[in-house]
């Protein structure tokens, strides 16, 4: 950014203050850097700088075979690794026209929704912490821990799960796991009320979030927002409903949408998604069909020449994979991800203009970006 603008006033010339927030700052959620131009504490303009966590996952993938890539997708949105796995595997299955057994699709649904709750737990905690309510953070992490335990039992890892295989699952669910999932659903339902008790009707919380970062539906679509930031502005777009994948076509759930398009509505949308996710998990866990967990997958995975785009609804928004196969080699010719955080982050500059420094952190939290996914 160039030198700050000097405004010539009647009595004094005033100077804009350039404030560099990040990449090392407690509330830029990783390594986001925001260069703010301030007039007092009001943000005149902002420059969002990304790229501090770039690891070249897309290029790396072109040199890995199809199964090895699953492990790389874990490292994108590292708070929702299972969702990334599912998205990638389904894209390859689409490219190969593979049939996935029903049992595997049900387990995928359960994992995706558990992952959504875990990711939203992290969001509600850090978002509240950014606005100063520190207790919600620890409450939310307490429940996230339960989900991590479930994942650990399912696939042995707590953060980067590597939990999918092309055509199905690597392992069947452990015995008794489904009961534990249902138990978790019962616990979680009461805990969501606990978060709401601390925040939803809190006067300070309302003052800090209502009317902050308002964006209307058409503008949100134009910016390419997806997921809760888009639904908070009243656009009922959810990949799970519009283009069902896994077993979502057999599930009953509602897509919550907001009306005002401000930080508070995005908050309400995500809290309602907690409840809807629990609904889906209950249905899927109670209705897991018997059967094989892997479809008819060839020994050597080598999709036919062609290209495909497939999107799923990650906790952050629409997570899409675009893969080109040349049909000859055992690795993709081109591998491209459409990460929801990257696209949602485009909205940040529009949202924070005219707000105060304190709102900047509230808005970064409200968009719920994970820098691992933004930079890849």
């Amino acid at each position, binding site marked *: 950014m160039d030198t700050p603008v000097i405004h010539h006033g009647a009595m004094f010339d005033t100077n804009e*203050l350039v*404030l*560099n927030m990040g990449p090392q*700052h*407690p*509330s830029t959620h990783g390594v986001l850097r925001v260069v703010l131009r301030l007039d007092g*504490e009001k943000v005149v303009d902002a420059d969002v700088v990304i790229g501090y966590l770039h690891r070249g996952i897309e290029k790396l993938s072109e040199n890995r075979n199809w199964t090895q890539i699953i492990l790389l997708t874990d490292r994108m949105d590292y708070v929702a690794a299972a969702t990334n796995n599912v998205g990638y595997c389904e894209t390859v299955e689409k490219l190969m026209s593979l049939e996935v057994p029903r049992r595997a699709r049900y387990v995928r649904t359960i994992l995706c929704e558990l992952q959504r709750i875990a990711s939203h737990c992290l969001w509600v905690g850090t978002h*509240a*912490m*950014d*606005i*100063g*309510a*520190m*207790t919600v953070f*620890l*409450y939310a992490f*307490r429940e996230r821990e339960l989900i991590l335990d479930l994942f650990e039992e399912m696939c042995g890892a707590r953060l980067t799960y590597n939990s999918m295989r092309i055509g199905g699952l690597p392992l069947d669910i452990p015995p008794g796991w489904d009961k534990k999932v249902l138990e978790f659903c019962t616990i979680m339902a009461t805990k969501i009320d606990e978060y709401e008790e*601390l*925040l939803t009707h*809190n006067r*300070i*919380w309302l*003052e*800090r979030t209502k009317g902050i970062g308002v964006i209307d539906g058409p503008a949100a679509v134009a910016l390419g927002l997806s997921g809760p930031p888009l639904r908070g502005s009243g656009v009922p777009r959810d990949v799970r409903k519009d283009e069902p994948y896994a077993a979502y076509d057999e599930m009953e759930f509602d897509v919550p949408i907001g009306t005002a398009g401000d930080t508070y509505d995005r908050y309400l949308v995500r809290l309602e998604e907690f409840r809807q996710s629990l609904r889906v998990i209950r249905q899927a866990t109670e209705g897991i069909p018997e059967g094989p967990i892997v479809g008819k997958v060839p020994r050597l995975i080598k999709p036919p020449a062609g290209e495909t785009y497939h999107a799923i609804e990650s906790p952050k928004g629409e997570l899409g994979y675009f893969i080109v196969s040349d049909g000859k080699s055992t690795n993709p010719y081109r591998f491209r991800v459409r990460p929801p955080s990257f696209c949602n982050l485009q909205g940040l500059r529009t949202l924070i203009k005219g707000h*105060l*420094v*304190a*709102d*900047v*952190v509230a808005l970064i939290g409200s968009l719920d970006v994970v820098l691992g996914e933004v930079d890849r």
Partner: protein
Amino acid sequence: MIDTLVIPLLKIVIVLNATLVSVTYMVLLERKVIAWAQSRLGPMRVGPYGILQPVADAVKLMIKEDITPVRADRWVFTIAPIISMVPALIVYAVIPFGPEVKLFGRQVTLYITDINVGLLYIVSVASVGVYGIILAGYASNSKYPLLASLRASAQLISYEVAVTLTLVSVIMMAGSLSMVSIVRAQQSSHMWYAFVQPLAFLIFFIGGLAETNRAPFDLPEAEQELTGGFHTEYSGMRFALFFLAEYANMIVVSSVATTLFLGGWLRPFPNVAFLSFLDFIPSWTWFLVKSFVFLYIFIWVRATLPRYRYDQLMRLGWKVLIPLAIANLVVTGIIKVMLL
């Protein structure tokens, strides 16, 4: 000689040490209470249940490297933490922990001094404390501390107005500026002023939260926005001074609130002879218990509430608290003239 020099000096030494020890344990108390609110344990490693944690903290802070940024204003940078610590400590000179007691065959007062303008002294000393924060922000020569110190000084100046106005209504009730007389006036009127002046009490409490930079008014040190606020560039013992000053100020606000609104060292219902068996508890215990309740509420609020935004804080101060305090003052004056 003994009465004019030795005993006051002894009292000063005792009060200062007691304050510093309770400030360090205040930090531990806060960590424990917040941990309990957040369903975790808090410090557990140093000593049983972590009770020696303050010692470990003190050692750590003292042996840490003391960094002065190259482009800082060296002198101002050094004196800023001292300026913020000293007012917090010298306020204790006029806080009455108890009445006169017989100790080793000698009449001793449980306060260092009782000056004619005690309350005014507290207010004026507290008003000097703001320099510590402003100068820290300025001397660091860094943007985050500067923003924080601007926030802090605006906040302190505006809430001081509301708090001082509530103090005036208490002074009108008691008819004196001396802390001891205010307690005695509560005894003779058979009523704690918290019940006579509930609005003033509430405004004083909110203003106290704001003046000590505590949640939900902790904007000057908002970690999530300003990376620590005015003490971002401080380290080691100088940082510790800021840290301790905040807690010392909390204790000051609690003690003043106890003295003005909760009857100071008086036991509950001091004029009811039926309850006189309570007198076996020393008067200063009541004072400490009441102050402790206050401090607990301070911590409790921090564990519960989100943080206000700068403009909302100013709006609350100027458009809600100050008009209310003035209205309360006028009503108090009218009632005082009409009825008494």
